[in-house]
């Protein structure tokens, strides 16, 4: 069955099992490998992408459910908030092994898109679904605050 979706601004057609999780569709069939497999049960957040701007766990989202929707992966992240997050991540040397960081960045970018001045509690709520076994959490928190400081306050509600 052919499924049409928009990935990083490009319309893509996939001939795959409609039940296939979006994660494996974008990794194995579109060769976009920045999005990671971590648990397959929406428990770790490594597979986070944006669907119509909303952070979504691609490992449990059937590819058929995103037909006609806009999917953004780490490769296509180009929002102001996204860039601010990535700049802060590099500046503070957040990553260690780095494997979970695509998902962390996608979750953080989505947080800042809707809330340009998140409190620590906002960060806990938005990021608690993303596991980092290297426990880079102290720096993730600091980097989100730093990215927020770099954003114009009008970019989101405070």
């Amino acid at each position: 069955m052919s499924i049409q979706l928009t990935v990083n601004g490009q319309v893509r057609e996939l001939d795959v099992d409609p039940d296939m999780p979006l994660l494996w569709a974008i990794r194995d069939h579109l060769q976009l490998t920045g999005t990671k497999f971590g648990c397959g049960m929406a428990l770790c957040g490594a597979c986070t992408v944006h669907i119509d701007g909303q952070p979504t766990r691609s490992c449990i989202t059937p590819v058929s459910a995103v037909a006609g929707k806009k999917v953004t992966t780490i490769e296509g992240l180009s929002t102001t908030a996204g860039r601010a997050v990535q700049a802060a991540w590099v500046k503070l040397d957040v990553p260690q092994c780095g494997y979970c960081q695509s998902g962390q960045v996608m979750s953080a970018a989505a947080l800042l898109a809707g809330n340009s001045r998140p409190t620590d509690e906002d960060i806990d709520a938005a990021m608690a679904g993303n596991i980092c076994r290297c426990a880079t959490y102290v720096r993730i928190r600091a980097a989100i605050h730093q990215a927020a400081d770099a954003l114009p306050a009008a970019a989101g509600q405070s």
Partner: protein
Amino acid sequence: MYFRHTDNLSMLLSRPEGVSRRDFLRLTTLAGAGLTLGAAWPAPAAQGAAKSSAGSNLLATPFVRIDPDNTVTVICKHLEAGQGVWTGLPAVVAEELDASWDQMRVESAPALVPTYGNLAFGPDARVQGTGGSTSLANSWDQLRHAGATARAMLVQAAAARWKVAASDITVSDGVVSHSSGRKATFGELAASAARLPVPANVGLKDPAHFKLIGQEKLPRLDSHAKSTGTQQFAIDVMLPGMMTAVIARPPRFGAKVQSIDATAAKAVPGVVDVVQVPRGVAVVGRDMWSAKKGREALKVTWDESAAEKRGTDELLKSYRELSRGKDAHVALSRGDVDAALKGAAKVIETEFEFPYLAHAPMEPLTSVCRLGADRCEIWAGCQFQTIDQINAATAVGLKPEQVTIYTLAAGGTFGRRANAESDYISEVASIAKATGGKYPVRLIWTREDDITGGRYRPLNYHRITAGLSKDGKLVAVRQSMVGQSIMAGTPFAAMMKDGVDPTAVEGNTAELYDVEHAQVTWSQPTVGVPVLWWRSVGHSHSAFSKEVAIDELAQAAGQDPVAFRLALLEKHPRQAAALKLAAGKAGWDRPFPQGNGRGRGIAVHESFGSVVAHVAEVTVTDDAIRVDRVVCAVDCGIAVTPDVVRAQMQSCVGYGLSAALYGKITLTDGRVDQTNFHQYRVMRINEMPRLIEVHIVPSSNPPSGVGEPGLPPIAPAVANAIRAATGIRLRKLPFDLAAARSAKV
């Protein structure tokens, strides 16, 4: 053919009689550096990582390559799994080379010994691998010499080009200069430098003149790739025609395939092959989804006659009995512990239990194999390149030198990727063999495969009986430890001494405190659950029983926990210094505001040549534990990249707290009870201490590791803080305050 299979591996890993590990390390370090840089570099052309300089316009030595584009690439023999070797090792080279940090690059070395052997692992550097927090320690002299040698060659090339004395040339920040004003970049000089003989003896910098080493914030070389999704891990390798495999493994450890019905599996669209391999049944599909669905449809009957069928409770019961038995091995003995305990004014006996723990790196085990008639290529986050090469060769029936290893960044390991059987690499090689090499194959372990797949930190039981003298001094310690051996039954058994697995007893109470009368014994149960080193190995449990028992003894002696420890650390000045630094920075001498469930605790531990002390502050609310603040002091010798040291301390705290607060693998009738992160809980951002302060003890000693030593003292520091807050002593991991409270009543 230089070695093959396990007996030869044992030989590789042993060291000459009568040579201490420290001496051995020193000898091999010096020999290694001279050998590799002094000899002509054998180009591993097939491996593509480091190129020969002969006839080219770049300068290449085993560890450093300088390209005409002015980049300096450090060839890294160690696995980057997050611990920062891709930054720390280049920093050592850049320092001696006087390079600019901006021009530094890094890439993984091919599997090649002795050139890339770990000098801490065995004679003649014949095993390449990463572990024991040795990367920086064993590379320190080697890479300083590599950097200094390349620098000397650049200077010679400039001197020849400008027809001036080499002694009038300076190098700074990546620029070679002469007092006349002439300047050249490394890239401009690389081709001429490459034609020069490699100098045998080059001087090293006086550490007082280090510019990059010790710099507070040297940016990591991998941050950009890891923040943009462009870092390649094994799971990201895409080869033309590649298929994806998953393996159905037995539901109980030790079971074997009895029969297979692959009819339904083969009917799943996208499934291309179902093959039996030594560890189970592999289902190969055109993508991960079809392979996974194929495995769900596969019917395997298992022969469980030899399988481990006991549960954790049963095992622990047997461990307690073993601890009282007579066949324990003596790991340490001094003085007369029986008499000293008999004469003690006060004797305290405590028991500790530690669960099996899975490593659960974020990148589940993944490996890729492409097999040809006389060549096998492996892509993986390899932690034991030499052993992986041998095991892959055995699996496909080739010689080790016909196996090319491409070491990629690993999405975490914590010890999991280093095992004597190279499990996930042997598996992918065996699938390639069973499918005749007709396509490249990628093996992915699901998270369930990972959590239920064994090779856990061993289940452990400790009992400590300790005696205090009338004046409250610790005079005798008897420690009984029971836990499976990681080394027994593997080639690493050659490192066992007097029947004792050093990784089972390392860091015990009598080893790290000055106690006049002490005996430490270890009993080795036979259990069918595979075990492995887990971040900080034996120290992951030994530090806990030691530091909680010491705290209890300090309390019994009516002494301050810091003062009590310091009195027992006269022969361990580095531990004493770290303890004092952490206590000082945490304001230990000021009263801590007790009440409202708040408490403060301390612990110190030496492991892998480094010392770490933590002060933990906690809040306990309705038996829920929150760690508010950790003040850490670390002595790791010269801190090459202090920000990486801080990152590793933060990481060790988080990883250690995952285990202390939640981590356990349990078995019921031999089946693992946990399957994924909903049952095998790990630390999340909302549970992480908000404040972790890291203080580095100034040192001029050569660097020692930081990937593991921050972990052992965190759980006991928190347990001691909980005791201060609640009066409850936690001696069983993971912490269950409600259970401990009701057990006390």
